[in-house]
């Protein structure tokens, strides 16, 4: 079955990473732009292995689930099954960029993959593109994670400017505490927190639930949001140099735990509950990085691992339940355990893992978390217990409302491919609880990549009254209390939800976006009213900037007039003809005359190039001028003749009669002085030209211009011909689909 191919690819990638990791990791390097210090350099270290195994290992069951889910989804919406390939292509692209991100050693490369995950997630969240909500949610996710990605780039460039390397290990060795490292650390932390949907950037995640379920299960449990904390882990050696950055992480993490947890407790929609839960869970991770120290970093790595297993299973459960019953609200569900026992058991295991019950891998995630916070301080320990209690309560509510109690809706039988992945992930959660050491080793290796020396993680059950066990018992008790007595928290939680909706950061986003739109519309209106206004909108501000530049430069010796000899007579005469033709273009009203006088300017300039000894440039100028004239002729031939005549007869409006010439003369004068000033001094541009002439023989070229185009500036040429080819695609598509008149 071809639909299962993506799942098989994911499984293969998982096996490859696992084998590579078992063989002791390794690195791949290829030159990219060595003169800029960039290389395509990948390394499979502990951190890369952990996140790479998560991205592919969770990818496998999710892709298998999607193979069955997506045809149903498209059927519900009356869409063609051919759209599946777009979905799986994007999912695979996302997986590849995720693996690239976590193994990249070069920071620019890391940034490229970082943006690739944002771009592919944009298309995945907005996959149901006929729905306005999906589109605006996708845009929100893209803006929040994309704008903050620019901060990451800024941080990378700051560090590069100071330490001269894009390689993280070298940076970690060279960086010293200081304002610059703190500033860069804050930027990196913001980028990571936004991607992980941490307060105050959390609002995009619940909106992103407009995505099809497999997308949520994959991106919003194991990949996209995990990339954020991965960034924190990757940069941890630098972040840890500044107490301020760690405090920032701690504050954002604690706020996310609280707000995400409370909102997860109050939400009614299945996927929304899980989205807020994700915010809260990654809050734990951010908090642990904020606490700092090898023990916390190791606990954080383990936490990411166990959370991703449990959360993806729960997302898949939500999708399966909605598929079976047609309901997506907790208040309309209940008692489904009897009709779908496998799903109930699988998701029950996952929920138990999230609630940190013993015998699941989740128990150890909380144990490590408790140990780290207990070592830190008693307020941290109290907060940890409260947070774990909150998690226990909301995830217990989620599961019980769906599977226990009175039955409120009918359920159709689910295809096995929608149930099996949940069961597999649930069993993995259980397996992690029974045989935890391999998972612990992986997390410890990941933590060593972040924090150097890290105590080994030795997950085991201890039946004694140690602090972690007591804290776990206290957390269970808190959770049960919250579950049993909802009247305790209902009103304050509702207040938090309504206040957040009224004054929260999402409102700032909406208002800011609307303002930007209005601003852009206003500029657009000025710019596109007609062609003259559009040109004026470029010439006037550009000219004003140039005038400011000219005014700021010292004028002494800046404008030198050379001498003329009789040899220059031909040149001067040609230039005079060009100038006359240029002035002449302002006069004619007939289109053909106008075209010919413009072409005359161009051909005159070609003669000037030839006289100045640039046969190459002259040749190209003649050719370009010919093509341009022919294209204009062609366009005129397409416009009906009476329209052309009518256009010719329109008189120039009175206010235009002075405005347009004034703008033209102003722009021309500015260009004149800029060019004069540039030609008056021996510029670095001339030095570069000399260098090109000197190097051309070494490039086996006798023609410098060709050598520049094909060799010295070959990359520019490559970009340009790409643009030209893309333009052809645009032209043919528009002409094939649209109408000419």
């Amino acid at each position, binding site marked *: 079955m071809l639909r299962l191919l993506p799942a098989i690819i994911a499984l293969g990638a998982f096996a490859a990473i696992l084998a590579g990791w078992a063989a002791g990791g390794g690195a791949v390097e290829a030159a990219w732009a060595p003169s800029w210090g960039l290389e395509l350099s990948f390394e499979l270290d502990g951190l890369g292995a952990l996140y790479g195994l998560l991205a592919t290992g969770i990818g496998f069951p999710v892709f298998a689930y999607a193979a069955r889910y997506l045809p149903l989804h498209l059927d519900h919406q009356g869409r063609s099954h051919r759209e599946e390939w777009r979905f799986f292509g994007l999912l695979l692209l996302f997986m590849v960029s995720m693996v690239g991100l976590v193994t990249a050693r070069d920071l620019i490369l890391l940034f490229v993959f970082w943006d690739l995950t944002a771009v592919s997630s944009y298309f995945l969240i907005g996959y149901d593109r006929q729905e306005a909500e999906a589109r605006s949610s996708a845009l929100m996710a893209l803006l929040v994670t994309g704008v903050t990605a620019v901060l990451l780039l800024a941080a990378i460039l700051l560090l590069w400017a100071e330490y001269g390397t894009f390689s993280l290990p070298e940076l970690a060795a060279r960086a010293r505490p200081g304002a610059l490292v703190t500033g860069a650390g804050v930027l990196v932390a913001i980028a990571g927190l936004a991607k992980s949907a941490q307060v105050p950037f959390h609002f995009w995640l619940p909106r992103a639930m407009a995505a099809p379920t497999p997308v949520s299960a994959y991106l919003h449990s194991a990949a996209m949001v995990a990339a954020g904390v991965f960034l924190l882990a990757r940069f941890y050696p630098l972040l840890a140099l500044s107490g301020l950055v760690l405090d920032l992480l701690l504050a954002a993490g604690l706020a996310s735990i609280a707000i995400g947890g409370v909102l997860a407790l109050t939400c009614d929609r299945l996927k929304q509950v899980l989205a807020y839960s994700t915010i809260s869970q990654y809050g734990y991770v951010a908090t642990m990085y904020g606490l700092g120290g090898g023990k916390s970093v190791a606990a954080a790595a383990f936490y990411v691992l166990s959370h991703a297993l449990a959360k993806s299973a729960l997302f898949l459960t939500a999708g399966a339940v909605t598929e079976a019953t047609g309901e997506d609200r907790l208040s309309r569900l209940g008692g489904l355990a009897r009709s779908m026992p496998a799903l109930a058991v699988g998701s029950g295991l996952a929920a138990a893992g999230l609630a940190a019950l013993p015998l699941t891998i989740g128990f150890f995630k909380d144990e490590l978390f408790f140990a780290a916070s207990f070592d830190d301080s008693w307020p941290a320990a109290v907060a940890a217990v409260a947070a774990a209690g909150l998690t226990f309560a909301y995830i217990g509510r989620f599961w019980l409302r769906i599977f226990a109690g009175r039955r409120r809706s009918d359920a159709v039988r689910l295809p096995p491919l929608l149930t099996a992945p949940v069961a597999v992930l649930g069993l993995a959660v259980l397996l992690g609880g029974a045989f935890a050491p391999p998972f612990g080793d992986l997390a410890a290796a990941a933590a060593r990549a972040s924090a150097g020396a890290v105590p080994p993680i030795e997950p085991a059950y201890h039946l004694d009254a140690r602090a972690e066990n007591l804290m776990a018992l206290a957390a269970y008790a808190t959770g049960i209390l919250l579950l049993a007595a909802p009247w305790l928290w209902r009103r304050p939680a509702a207040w938090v939800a309504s206040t957040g909706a009224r004054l929260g950061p999402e409102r700032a986003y909406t208002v800011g976006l609307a303002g930007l739109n209005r601003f852009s519309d206003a500029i657009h209106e000025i710019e596109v009213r007609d062609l003259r206004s559009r040109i004026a909108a470029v010439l006037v501000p550009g000219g004003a900037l140039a005038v400011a530049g000219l005014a700021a430069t010292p004028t002494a010796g800046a404008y030198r007039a050379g001498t003329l000899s009789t040899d220059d007579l031909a040149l001067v005469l040609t230039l005079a003809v060009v100038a006359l033709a240029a002035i002449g273009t302002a006069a004619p009203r007939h289109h053909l005359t106008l075209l010919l006088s413009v072409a005359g300017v161009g051909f005159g300039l070609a003669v000037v190039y030839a006289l100045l000894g640039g046969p*190459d440039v002259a040749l190209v100028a003649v050719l370009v001028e010919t093509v341009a004239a022919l294209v204009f002729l062609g366009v005129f031939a397409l416009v009906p003749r009476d329209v052309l005549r009518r256009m010719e007869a329109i008189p120039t409006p009175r206010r235009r009669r002075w405005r347009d010439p004034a703008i033209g003369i102003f722009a021309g004068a500015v260009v004149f002085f800029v060019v004069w000033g540039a030609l008056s001094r021996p510029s670095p541009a001339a030095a570069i030209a000399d260098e090109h002439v000197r190097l051309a023989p070494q*490039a086996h*070229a006798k023609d410098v*211009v*060709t050598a520049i185009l094909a*060799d010295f500036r070959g990359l520019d040429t490559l970009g340009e*011909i790409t643009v*030209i080819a893309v333009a052809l695609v645009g032209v043919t598509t528009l002409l094939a689909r649209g109408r*000419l008149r």
Partner: protein
Amino acid sequence: MRPTLSQAVARLILLPGLAISIATLVKGYGDAGDGFAAGVIAALTLLVQYVAFGYREAERRIPGLRRLPVAAVAGLARALAVALVPAARGDAILTHWPPPGDSPVRLGTLELVSAVLFDVGVFLVVLGVVTGAVGAIARAAERAGGRA
């Protein structure tokens, strides 16, 4: 119907025009002209055919003209290949062969260097794009019921 003057000129100009274009291309590294100029010369020669004969007749007379836009894709692929092959060998992208100092292989007066291969890519893109765009406009104009 007797051929008009423009058709006679178009017929005369076709082969010399293409020959000049090819010459400009292959000699571009040693003399004035390059892939871009060669592409425009070839495209202009073909444009004259379009103008003189109309696109149907021109495409009938010159086999393969209709498929020429594919050349743009081929040219881009070729340029990309020249750019990326050195990367696979561990050099920076667009590292040309032979390296500075080595003398290139000669074929008569022609010197074989990889930069010319890249330039051929540029030539193909320019040729394909110009003829493709003009052909598309001509077709659209005919659909719209105007003169083409």
